[in-house]
């Protein structure tokens, strides 16, 4: 047996023996809760109503398998790409949930690995891997959204500390997070992209205050964050002073691939067909009884198939050592638009049962569908709007003039 096969056998045995039952996805389609439920986001403020969530996090963190490919010195598993692939395949096969999710693993971690100082890596990555700190992203401001580089939150050096003043907005989970990675203006007198710095700070620092904002979906995942004379030690700059725009772009790359990945391979059976069976039924030929809905479900499923094939194509090219092709530029745009279409179509399938907000007469899945439709509207806004994606592709890929 080859070394990798050995690794697969051991991994499978360990996972199967150690993963608690509630950390496995149910096999019955449609009975799994939304992706974010019952997953560990980590952090000092985390509560674990289900103790198995914490138990699984700790077990996996001990092996370094919350961040399988990161070096062991930083709390990762030190696995090769091939080993990491085996781990994720075995987890999928055994229907095991991820032990930890969040911006630490998907955004700031990869950025620190690439650009952080050795001390920063040792200090922050270990905490990320063990799920001890949760991160939020402080980019957007009231007057700086798509035009992010015009941000105005000001940082002025005072001795060994930056003093930060300003306001961030749409900061997802700021109220639940322990640390923020943040873009601030450190030089107002140069081209706007050249006077920005990437800073990390503790949300418990004096001068930081957070106010949740309610979304149209009724939830409050994001906040306004106010920064008043917040003092940040100099060694918490990543990538050098006035080099923040480069950091921001590198991190946006991670963010966009995370967002498009999130919509990939989630569905196993065709949930829209399952829903249509329940709410619409079949005609005598065995076809869904509403021909228009049937056509729209087919269209959407086929669109999804095209996206999945494109993601696969991109992965295969990467495996052959090729640079990401032009196709990779469309993922964020297309995956989010598709998710918007999917959640919207689900409401048409449900019909009047999708009217519910709360109270009697609607089941949990129906209420969730309505809220998912609303939440999904934000998919093409967060992480760079669809229009901005189209601008970028027009310029970088098609070479169209400004």
């Amino acid at each position, binding site marked *: 047996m080859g070394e990798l096969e050995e690794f697969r056998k051991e991994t499978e045995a360990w996972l199967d023996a150690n993963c608690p039952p509630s950390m496995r996805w149910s096999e019955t389609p449609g009975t799994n809760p939304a992706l974010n439920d019952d997953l560990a986001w980590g952090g000092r403020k985390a509560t674990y109503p289900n103790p198995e969530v914490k138990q699984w996090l700790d077990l996996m963190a001990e092996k370094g398998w919350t961040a399988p490919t990161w070096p062991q010195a930083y709390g990762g598993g030190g696995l090769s790409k091939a080993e990491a692939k085996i781990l994720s395949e075995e987890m999928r096969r055994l229907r095991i949930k991820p032990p930890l999710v969040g911006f630490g693993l998907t955004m700031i971690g990869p950025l620190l690995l690439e650009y952080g100082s050795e001390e920063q890596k040792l200090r922050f990555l270990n905490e990320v891997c063990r799920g001890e700190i949760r991160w939020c992203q402080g980019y957007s401001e009231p007057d700086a959204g798509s035009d992010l580089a015009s941000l105005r939150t000001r940082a002025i050096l005072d001795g060994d500390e930056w003093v930060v003043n300003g306001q961030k907005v749409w900061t997802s989970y700021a109220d639940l997070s322990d640390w923020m990675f943040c873009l601030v203006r450190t030089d107002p007198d140069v081209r706007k992209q050249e006077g920005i710095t990437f800073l990390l700070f503790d949300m418990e620092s004096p001068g930081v205050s957070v106010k949740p904002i309610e979304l149209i979906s009724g939830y409050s995942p994001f906040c306004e964050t106010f920064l008043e004379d917040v003092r940040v030690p100099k060694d918490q700059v990543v990538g050098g002073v006035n080099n923040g725009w480069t950091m921001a772009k590198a991190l946006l790359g991670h963010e966009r691939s995370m967002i498009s990945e999130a919509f990939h391979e989630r569905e196993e059976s*065709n949930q829209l*067909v399952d829903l*249509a*069976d329940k709410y619409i039924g079949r005609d005598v030929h*065995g*076809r*869904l009884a509403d021909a228009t809905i*049937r*056509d729209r*479900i*087919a*269209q959407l*499923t*086929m*669109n999804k*198939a*095209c*996206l999945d*094939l*494109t993601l*696969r*194509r991109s992965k*295969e*090219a990467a495996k*052959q050592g*090729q640079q990401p092709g*032009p*196709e990779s530029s*469309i993922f964020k*745009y*297309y995956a989010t638009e598709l998710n918007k279409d999917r959640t919207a179509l689900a409401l048409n399938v449900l019909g009047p049962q999708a009217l519910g907000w709360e109270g009697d007469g609607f089941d949990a899945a129906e209420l969730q569908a309505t809220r998912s439709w609303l939440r999904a509207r934000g998919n093409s806004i967060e992480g760079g709007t669809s*229009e901005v994606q*189209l*601008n970028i*592709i*027009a310029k970088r*890929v*098609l*070479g*169209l*003039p*400004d």
Partner: protein
Amino acid sequence: MALVLNEDQQLFKNTAADFVKRESPVSRLRRLRDSGDQDGFSRELWGRMAELGWQSIIIPEAYGGLGMGYLDLACVLEECGRNLVPEPLISTLLLGANAVLLGGSEEQKSEILPRVAEGSMLLALAYHERGARYDCCRCETRAERGENGYTLQGEKVLVFDGMAADKLLVSARESGAANDRNGISLFLLDPNAAGVELSAQSTVDTRKAAVLRLSGVEVPAAALLGSSGEAGTVLSEVIDRATAGLCAEMLGSMQGASAMTLDYLKTREQFGVKIGSFQALKHRAVQMFVELELSRSAVLGACDAIDQGSEKTAELISVAKARCSDAAVLIAHEGIQMHGGIGMTDEHDIGFYAKRARACELTFGDAAYHRDRYARLQGF
């Protein structure tokens, strides 16, 4: 599974691209049209394609071919599509030779396939009947079994490259009702046989087809291709493979049309700036690009499925044809619009792309047809 071309395939594709660029700019299609060429293509160029091995790609080695796959064939078809190359790869190879390959006897394969591979025989598949829309098993043409063979009676339309073919393959019904999948047989037919009447059709894309009228045509028993009454299944599979091939050609044509349009966006000036700087046009150009990339994935997925003998082949072919149909029409329409007045002139090549896009869309099922088929295959 492979959705990325390997080195050999890439090399093969580059060679095809060079050949097409050198030998067949779109102006050649225009010349063929303007000179009223009967065939609508060049037999001389067909011969040179055979030297490159194009007609041999999907023919097994046992019959003088190369025994390669659909991913390989797609490389050639895509490059042909890029410049709207009109040579009869779809009709002779994907329809004709595939019918022989999938339905014929050992003897028939040995007789016909090597000649197709060497470029010395043109085939046409006469299956489509007026009003059948996209149902390849709708067949009212009759075959009556006699003492020494069969008598054929009926009419076929849109027989692609039917006027030029050295041999015709005709579907005719031995039993059953007009729409039955069972009871259809395929026959090899000499276009010069008594009772065969062929008349020319020109399609919108300047290609050639034929109406085939069969009035009491006598064919020997040996003309039956494969087994009696079972051609419905063969035809479906042949059309599926031809559909995958057509999609690869469409993928190339979409790129030809997009490149032309993008080029115009970068050169044409109005209001003192390049028109490609207008965001209203930029976003629509990106939309075209997105469709193109998704189409490429779908085409590769379908061809790979055929090569792997995947059980999802039919589904993936529908995914590809639906996508390519919509994308090709979008790119054609936008191509004309973004060229403004010049896009409406016969003088400009974008119109050739638009016409071919439509013709391909309406061949082997449009997007709506394939969505319906996909839903059926998926059980909803």
